[in-house]
């Protein structure tokens, strides 16, 4: 769905939205296992991790059992410690400083932690490696149970993984998800439950849920509509007659979009078919108004004017979004307009012959007495007008309907999944990539140098509690320039040995205790600096990838704070320091808000065009007012009900309301025909009720969907179509004289 939206406004926002959509962060998978005793959960976590690693679907899987302090990565970081550590400064190698370090070492040896202190204390008395290790462990909030990660607040084992497959590789993501399911099935014990979150899981879950929903609903709605139509017309042929215009219309629509835009977006087809739902009514209107045995031109003469006007206004109503300038919306408008026109043309010129050949007509045209009783309901017209006015007043009182400002509302992912994502992210201490700063450079080194200039600023912000922690590539991997400067500041071996001798003079160290230290410092002076391309360890690469990446020609560094308490201070400090601040969610949401507002404006312009068409077509002020009143009433009441339900109106509602207006025009214009005998009026009422029942049946099924997107469309159309029928009947139909009522 995000692809359907325009790109972000600023370069940085565009880049981050793009990176979030396709970058390495999209492969993130967060797993939780709960609902079993802790030791069982830990075992499941270990077993699952084994299976996941062996599946080969993941670039990286970690359940906490592999921590830095007993891994091959430790050896690499230890070897490069004096190049990577910010402690490597001339001051750290003075006699005084070394003396202090030795005293600290002595205290450590005295303590119960002696075995740990001895591990690194002699080879690295200045503590460079432990500083690096602390940076890598970071501000993790996880606790450890049986050696694997657990959430701090509850018994839930946590696993963090990243898929090999990128976000655009659906088959790869399917395989990764299958591996997760299989791993859990293998490792599962008792009632343990698996929770999965992360962009990769969501995308697929949403696609699968939606596919399952749509498949089930398509079948159910075809059966229901077919049943209704068969019952009404008692001929299987009518099904074919209904299918022909909509099929040809959709095909022509897709073809024209392909020709005009060069490609057809999947969303265009999806939403476009919703809008084309109105064309299913066209053959029903034709067949429903035919008397059995009647020649086609006679039927056409009776309904032709209303039908043509309904089609033209529906098409004109869509010109708004056609000319909106947003590629997605324009495609949608184009698809729907062509579809409607073609379907209408087919209905008008091709179907009559088929209908006559199959002699399709309603089984009965209705009982005039019942009709009159129903028509007497129009006496309650004022009440309906009151309801419309009330809705309108309500909308005005709340300052117009609330427009959707949140990108996630357009996502097919349910809210509960987002909540789970946020929860697992918090428990794992993963930055949520919402407010970040960005630096840009021609190569890795340029980016790292710019980031190094930010480090003192970030340190100050951390002490001022602007954020809890911050992820930045330069902290893990200093620029080559910095590494070279550190090498230059290391004393030569003889010099260092001499200083050590002075520093340890009064202390009980045996000569040569620090020999490894002297040798390692000597080696550090000449080793080649560590570069990004030298890093092969997945544990380290996985940490750096989201923080340091290439897009096009340029490299980008991301500065991602966690537990951000004062976003505006972080933003200001980063801007002052020359970095670009991006509030990713605000950017995305602003784009959506601007988009939605513009779409509504174009929707309004389209409606205005339709209004003019109705006025020109009917040439009768009373009828224009009654038709426009009925449609406006339906739209206002629908928006009012949705707003009262707390719904924020988005693109989905525009699409749905376009459809409501399309069917509403049919209803209103057919009811608005004048000087009809009772028989014809009964036919119209029954035909329109059939059309309405088809729409309501189909879309009320959507209301049962788990996918919020489909659910919203269903709700809007059902409310809209029902109120359109009611108001069209009440306002657009002629009020019968009192005499007629007494017959």
């Amino acid at each position: 769905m995000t692809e359907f939206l325009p790109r972000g406004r600023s370069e940085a926002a565009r880049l981050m939205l793009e990176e979030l959509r396709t970058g390495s962060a999209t492969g993130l998978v967060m797993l939780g296992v709960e609902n079993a005793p802790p030791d069982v959960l830990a075992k499941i976590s270990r077993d699952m991790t084994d299976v996941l690693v062996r599946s080969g679907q993941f670039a990286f899987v970690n359940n906490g059992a592999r921590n830095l302090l007993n891994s091959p990565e430790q050896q690499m970081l230890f070897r490069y410690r004096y190049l990577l550590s910010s402690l490597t400064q001339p001051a750290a190698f003075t006699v005084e400083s070394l003396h202090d370090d030795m005293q600290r070492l002595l205290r450590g040896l005295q303590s119960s932690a002696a075995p740990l202190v001895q591990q690194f204390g002699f080879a690295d008395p200045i503590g460079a490696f432990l500083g690096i290790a602390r940076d890598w462990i970071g501000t993790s909030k996880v606790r450890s149970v049986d050696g694997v990660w657990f959430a701090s607040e509850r018994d839930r084992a946590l696993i963090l993984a990243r898929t090999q497959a990128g976000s655009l590789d659906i088959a790869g993501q399917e395989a990764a998800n299958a591996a997760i399911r299989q791993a859990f099935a293998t490792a599962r014990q008792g009632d343990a439950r698996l929770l999965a979150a992360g962009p990769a899981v969501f995308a697929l879950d949403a696609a699968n849920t939606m596919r399952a929903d749509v498949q089930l609903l398509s079948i159910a709605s075809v059966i229901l509509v077919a049943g209704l139509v068969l019952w009404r017309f008692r001929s299987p042929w009518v099904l074919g007659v209904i299918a022909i215009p909509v099929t040809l219309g959709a095909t022509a629509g897709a073809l024209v979009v392909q020709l005009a835009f060069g490609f057809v977006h999947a969303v265009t087809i999806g939403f476009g078919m919703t809008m084309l739902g109105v064309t299913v009514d066209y053959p029903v209107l034709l067949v429903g108004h035919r008397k059995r045995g009647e020649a086609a031109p006679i039927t056409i003469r009776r309904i032709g004017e209303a039908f043509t006007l309904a089609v033209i206004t529906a098409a004109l109503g869509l010109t708004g979004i056609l000319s909106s300038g947003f590629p997605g919306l324009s495609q949608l408008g184009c698809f729907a307009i062509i579809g409607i026109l073609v379907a209408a043309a087919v209905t008008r010129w091709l179907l009559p012959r088929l209908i006559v050949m199959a002699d399709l007509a309603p089984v009965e045209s209705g009982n005039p007495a019942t009709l009159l009783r129903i028509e007497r309901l129009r006496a309650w017209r004022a009440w309906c007008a009151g309801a419309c006015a009330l809705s309108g007043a309500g909308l005005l009182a709340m300052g117009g309907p609330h427009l959707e400002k949140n990108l996630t509302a357009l996502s097919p992912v349910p809210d509960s999944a987002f909540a789970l994502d946020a929860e697992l992210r918090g428990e794992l201490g993963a930055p949520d990539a919402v407010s970040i700063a960005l630096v840009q450079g021609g190569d890795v080194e340029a980016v790292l140098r710019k980031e190094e200039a930010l480090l003192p600023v970030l340190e100050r912000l951390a002490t001022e509690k602007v954020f809890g922690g911050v992820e930045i590539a330069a902290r893990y991997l200093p620029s080559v320039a910095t590494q070279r400067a550190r090498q230059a500041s290391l004393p030569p071996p003889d010099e260092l040995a001499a200083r050590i001798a002075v520093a340890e003079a009064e202390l009980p160290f045996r000569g040569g205790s620090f020999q490894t230290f002297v040798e390692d410092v000597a080696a550090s002076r000449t080793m080649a600096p560590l570069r990004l391309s030298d890093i092969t360890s997945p544990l380290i690469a996985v940490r750096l990838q989201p923080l340091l990446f290439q897009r096009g020609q340029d490299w980008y560094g991301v500065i991602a704070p966690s537990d951000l308490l004062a976003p505006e201070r972080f933003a200001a400090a980063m801007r002052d320091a020359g970095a670009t601040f991006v509030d990713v969610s605000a950017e995305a949401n602003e784009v959506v808000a601007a988009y939605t507002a513009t779409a509504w404006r174009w929707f309004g312009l389209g409606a205005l065009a339709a209004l003019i068409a109705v006025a020109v077509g009917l040439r009768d002020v009373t009828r224009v007012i009654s038709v426009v009143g009925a449609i406006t009433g339906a739209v206002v009441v629908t928006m009012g009900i949705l707003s009262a339900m707390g719904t924020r109106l988005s693109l989905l509602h525009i699409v749905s309301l376009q459809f409501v207006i399309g069917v509403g025009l049919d209803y209103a214009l057919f009811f608005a025909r004048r000087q009809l005998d009772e028989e014809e009026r009964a036919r119209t009422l029954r035909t329109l009720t059939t059309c309405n029942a088809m729409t309501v049946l189909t879309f009320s099924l959507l209301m049962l969907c788990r996918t919020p997107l489909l659910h919203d469309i269903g709700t809007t159309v059902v409310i809209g179509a029902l109120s359109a029928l009611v108001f069209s009947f009440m306002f657009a139909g002629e009020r019968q004289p009192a005499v007629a009522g007494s017959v």
Partner: protein
Amino acid sequence: MQMLASVQESNATFTEVKVIASLTRPLQDSGRLRYRRPSHLEKVTVEPLAERLVVDGDRLTLAEGGAAPRVIDLNAEPMIRGLVDAIRGTLAGDLATLQRSYRVSMEGDVAAWRLTLVPIDPSLAQLIVSTTIDGAGASLRGVQTRQTNGDDIRMTITPVS
């Protein structure tokens, strides 16, 4: 072992002498020990530097002087777990725990026994050659740990009634 397994709680004082290969003189310290069944062990060093080490279940907390305590999860640190198990397993009379990390041999009689633990676990064997624990009846009298780097740590224990 069964005698040890019947002890609910015990208190003692200790003195420790660490002979560290890299140092020219041994380091000494002393303090109190306390054990409560099944898994609580406390070592409070009084001299020369105040320190408090508490093991409870799988959690080890080490507080040195006024510094913020360090918490270590024993499951994540098999080496430290091995060190803790040697003492706690003996105090608990829990041979199974001891045998998980060590080859265990026993000599002497009830009045004066000696338990020798040789690590099986490779990460522990990298650090420790052997641990010997001396006892009398249901109480511990001494623990000696010989490390692979030549270090030697002897703890002498005096029960407090």
